[in-house]
């Protein structure tokens, strides 16, 4: 009941859905449509799990007065402010206070946090991007050509640079990515098969 039934559900649904791909029969289509319909609803219910988890962690920090608990208070105030402002579905339309907090507080912070990476990558290029051996030299050369060839200044320096960048992207890069993609596809399909056949069970907390 605790382990076998869920595993049986995985195998039966997995097997049926694999076969469904090859069968255009109306009964199979109906089964497929209903399966998708159910999954959408299960998914909607499961999503707040993450929010619940976050609230729990922040509350625990405040109650235990852990290091930096004041920041958890700020997080909780922000959370409940949004929940309070979200009492009506109209809050999701442009121009409301709810959306303004999202647009002028959340978006700038998120976007800026990621933009910090520009500084780190420049620093990393200066400190760590070295032509120590043949392989590192290949990476470095390819990177420099693509970096210059993909911006307008590449054309201004010499038309060969963008041409070379284009050739790298469409030939060696494409070939390398294809080899990785094929490996990825084989890996993903075989893992899915192992799950359906009951060989892979770690997703249920079983060995």
């Amino acid at each position, binding site marked *: 009941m605790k382990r076998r039934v869920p595993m049986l559900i995985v195998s039966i649904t997995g097997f049926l859905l694999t076969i469904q*791909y090859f069968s255009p029969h109306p009964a199979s*289509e109906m089964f*497929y*449509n209903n399966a*998708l*319909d159910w*999954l*959408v609803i299960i*998914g*909607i219910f499961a*999503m707040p799990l993450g929010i619940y988890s976050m609230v729990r962690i922040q509350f625990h920090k405040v109650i235990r007065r852990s290091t930096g608990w004041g920041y958890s208070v700020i997080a909780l105030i922000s959370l409940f402010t949004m929940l309070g402002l979200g009492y009506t*579905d109209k809050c*999701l*339309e*442009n121009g409301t206070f709810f*959306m303004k907090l*999202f*647009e002028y507080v*959340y*978006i700038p912070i*998120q*976007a800026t*946090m*990621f*933009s910090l990476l*520009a*500084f780190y*990558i*420049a*620093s990393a*290029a*200066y*400190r760590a*991007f*070295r*032509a120590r051996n043949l392989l590192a030299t290949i990476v*470095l050369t390819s990177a*420099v050509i693509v*970096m*210059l060839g*993909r*911006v*307008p*200044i590449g*054309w*201004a320096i010499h038309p060969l640079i*963008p041409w070379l960048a*284009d050739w790298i*992207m*469409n030939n060696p*890069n*494409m070939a390398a*990515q*294809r080899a*990785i*993609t094929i490996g990825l596809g084989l890996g993903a399909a075989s893992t899915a098969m192992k799950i359906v056949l009951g060989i892979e069970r770690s997703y249920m907390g079983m060995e």
Partner: protein
Amino acid sequence: MSIWEKLLQIDRRIIYLLVFLAAIIPFLFPAGLEVNTTREVQSIYDFIENLAPGTPILLAADYDPQTQAENGPQAQAVLRHMFKKDLRVVIMTLSQDGAALAEMFSNSVAREYQKRRWEDYTYLGYKPYPSIIILSLGQDFRISYPRDYYNRKLDDIPMMQDIRNLDDVAAVIEIGGGNVCHMWLTYAHERYKVPLALGVTAVSGPQYYPFLQSGQLFGLLGGLKGAAEYETLMDGEYTRLDLPRKAIQGMNVQNFVHVLIVILTVVGNVAFFAIRRRERRAS
């Protein structure tokens, strides 16, 4: 300590300052270099350009604030083109933070073209679990989206009357970054054979070239450069509506920072080899 060692040990904040300056100066003194278009961007433009007015098309804006700087100009340029061609545009998102972004940009671009919600375009909004949602769109939009973002029943929306599933749209243009693009490829293009083009962040750009070559994608916009190329192709429209060319403006800056990073890499390597040579001589 030699000059090379000193050079390698400079405070990281000096490098940050250089990057900051390289990003600010070109804004104030733009170089105005020309942006050249690539095949993969041109093919998206040509595809939309050749569609008849009124053709339904799906724009999936699956990006969030983190990548808005790259994906935002892509989505806006493509949507402007769709509205210019009088297509019926279905807009949706599979990114939770993208729901607000898509709502904002779709309505503002629609205002530029005086397009009416529910007649010329419909914004479906967000639903969780991308792979399941994409699969359900192939069967019927109403499975995942019985109502649009503004809580109007899809069956009551005039422009959605003859749009049931992915078979009824000319193509899907997916703007996003990361895994969701793979999902559109697998669950929309391969399963339902809908033509697909991607607008992706530059980070994920290189991994989609195999799909471009195999014909699984009919076009690809890579990062801000892709958006700048599309803005170049839509130049007349940007002039007519007096719109800022955000991506083209950004490319001016991109030039400088790229050159700075190349210089930093070269200087770093020269210093590294100078130190290594000296050490070898000493031993």
